[in-house]
């Protein structure tokens, strides 16, 4: 009744092809973004911003990156952590070598470095497919982590091997370093993720996205009709690694403050993969939903005993958390194997008809 297309007539092809053809959709998304940018920093507590929202935005960006590669192009990759590490260390090196360069540009350059590395490690994908490729990308993951651990140059010869985000400003506002306020960092992360999400959405609706999906669904047939597998797959790896690289730089500069290679180990790769699969493979919205699920559920479970006033040993709490988390993953996969994005789609379809049953 509220959410319907009746009365919305498109008079141009452009209007018909818009990302949100239904006006209500557009309004909701715009309102959400504005609320996120304006209302949230005013209302949210520092804990909420610092420990939940900022990592949520950063992980969403990484999830979008991995979704492009795994969801749209069908190349299962477990090297996400390694590519994020490349972005982080590249950003660190660039900004410490050229402190005058704006941090926004530094992030973009770091993404480009990560993209280049992604291209190199994407080459095996031409020969190897499926789970075998996933395990091959683990080679990238472990090698990159080892490299950053081993070569002291990457951490500017710090005795501990950790990289620390130096204080940097954007338009006069401190956004990185210990003095940056959570609100400023949140807005920066939000800006990046909105921009790149829009870019990604356009990418997947266009020629490149369609060629990725063709490779994913039937790669030999795609090759026959003229889609070049080399270019397409490498492009997927490159762009996906760009996103992951920027996300990695954000992880260190906007969230952690300082990091060692442990922060980018295989657990991170799996975490982002879970986000993508729970959220929905092949869906930009799914990346956000998946990131929200993976981030919010553990924190909720960790806070639940305190909220309910139940005293439980931290060990037991953690173990139950793990069990519930694992159980929820299985539950969601049984209920909706195509992820939360599909659940959302079904909801929208139901909303279209509401209050009528069919």
């Amino acid at each position, binding site marked *: 009744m509220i959410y319907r297309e009746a009365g919305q007539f498109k008079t141009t092809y452009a209007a018909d092809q818009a990302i949100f053809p239904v006006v209500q959709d557009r309004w909701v998304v715009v309102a959400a973004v504005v609320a996120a940018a304006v209302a949230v920093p005013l209302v949210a507590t520092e804990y909420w911003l610092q420990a939940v929202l900022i990592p949520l935005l950063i992980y969403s960006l990484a999830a979008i990156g991995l979704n492009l590669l795994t969801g749209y192009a069908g190349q299962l990759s477990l090297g996400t952590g390694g590519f994020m590490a490349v972005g982080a260390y590249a950003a660190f090196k660039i900004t410490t070598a050229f402190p005058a360069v704006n941090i926004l540009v530094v992030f973009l350059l770091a993404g480009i470095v990560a993209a280049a590395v992604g291209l190199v490690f994407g080459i095996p994908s031409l*020969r190897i497919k499926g789970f075998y490729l996933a395990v091959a990308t683990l080679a990238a993951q472990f090698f990159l982590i080892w490299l950053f651990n081993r070569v002291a140059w990457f951490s500017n010869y710090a005795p501990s091997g950790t990289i620390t985000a130096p204080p940097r400003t954007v338009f006069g506002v401190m956004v990185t370093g210990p003095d940056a306020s959570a609100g400023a960092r949140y807005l920066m992360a939000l800006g990046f993720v909105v921009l790149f999400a829009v870019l990604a959405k356009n990418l997947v609706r266009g020629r490149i996205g369609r060629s990725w999906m063709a490779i994913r669904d039937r790669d030999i047939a795609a090759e026959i009709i003229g889609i070049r597998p080399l270019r397409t797959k490498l492009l997927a790896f490159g762009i996906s690694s760009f996103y992951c690289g920027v996300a990695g730089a954000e992880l260190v500069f906007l969230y952690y403050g300082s990091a060692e290679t442990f922060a980018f180990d295989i657990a991170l790769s799996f975490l982002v993969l879970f986000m993508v699969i729970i959220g929905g493979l092949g869906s930009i919205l799914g990346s956000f939903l998946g990131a929200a699920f993976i981030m919010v559920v553990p924190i909720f479970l960790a806070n639940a005993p305190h909220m309910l006033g139940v005293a439980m040993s931290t060990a037991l709490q953690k173990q139950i958390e793990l069990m519930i*988390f*694992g159980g929820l993953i299985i539950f969601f996969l049984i209920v909706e194997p195509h992820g939360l994005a599909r659940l959302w789609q079904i909801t929208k379809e139901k909303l279209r008809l509401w209050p009528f049953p069919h």
Partner: protein
Amino acid sequence: MILDVLHAILVAPFKDMVGAPGFLAEVLIGGVASGLMYSLVALGFVLIFKASGVFNFAQGALVLFAALTLVGLMERGVPTIVALGLTAGVMVVLALAIERVVLRPLVNQEHIILFMATIGLNFFLEGFGEMLWGANVKKLDVGIPQGSFKLGEILVNQLELTAALTAAVLVTVLAVFFHGTRIGRALRAVADDHEAALSIGIPLKTIWVIVWAVSGIVALVAGIMWGANSGVQFSLSLIALKALPVLILGGFESVPGAIVGGLIIGVGEKMGEVYWGPLVGGAIENWFAYVLALVFLLFRPQGLFGEKIIERV
């Protein structure tokens, strides 16, 4: 400069090997031993993948759970043989539960969904195992001789010898099982084609329970070997990551592949770390195994013994 680097990579390590043959033998034996330890874990993966097409990410957690249960029972005074039997029983019950709760509802889904479900299972088992038996490191003592003895100049570790023999026995038993018994044939049929197997009356659910139970018992054996080496604790579940290169190399569906892959990875890893590792600062084991497997994959994308991937347009 370039010549120095080339010399260091291509010549010096080999001279090193030839110069100390006793040590080379030790490295090779060490490589074989650790390779077989990896194979024990990889076998569990292979069994499940062979029969149900599921890449069981939770295999590491199964290894841990089996070892924890065994040690937990033994700590409470249950005699060793009885504990072993009881633990095997627990793994069968676990297999039943997994089939009912995880596999049956997801019967026709894509492989990646099943893979994700096993990841969820992994978390669940980790939390569950720790909750039941505690997070402390536990000593595992099922009577396996622990010391080492010298064969000439070479140091042989008795635990590794036992592990190697166990792996050999296990593989033989599994080979006989798959090729000699009726159930084994049914398993192979299911691995080939679920629907065809169903249509000739093979009960899919029973097969799956059997496969997961057998894999659970293999996990128990692996857990005993690894647990005897480092004590039973959480990190056991991380061994699964070390078994993955073995799987890629050998092929996901091949039992002999798991062994051969294990040997190649084990030996390759150790030789790489000992002879080439110092050139680049060491600790290269983690990625060396994967890179080795990757190189093999480039030449044989389905692994050494895996089924050839036939793609239809």
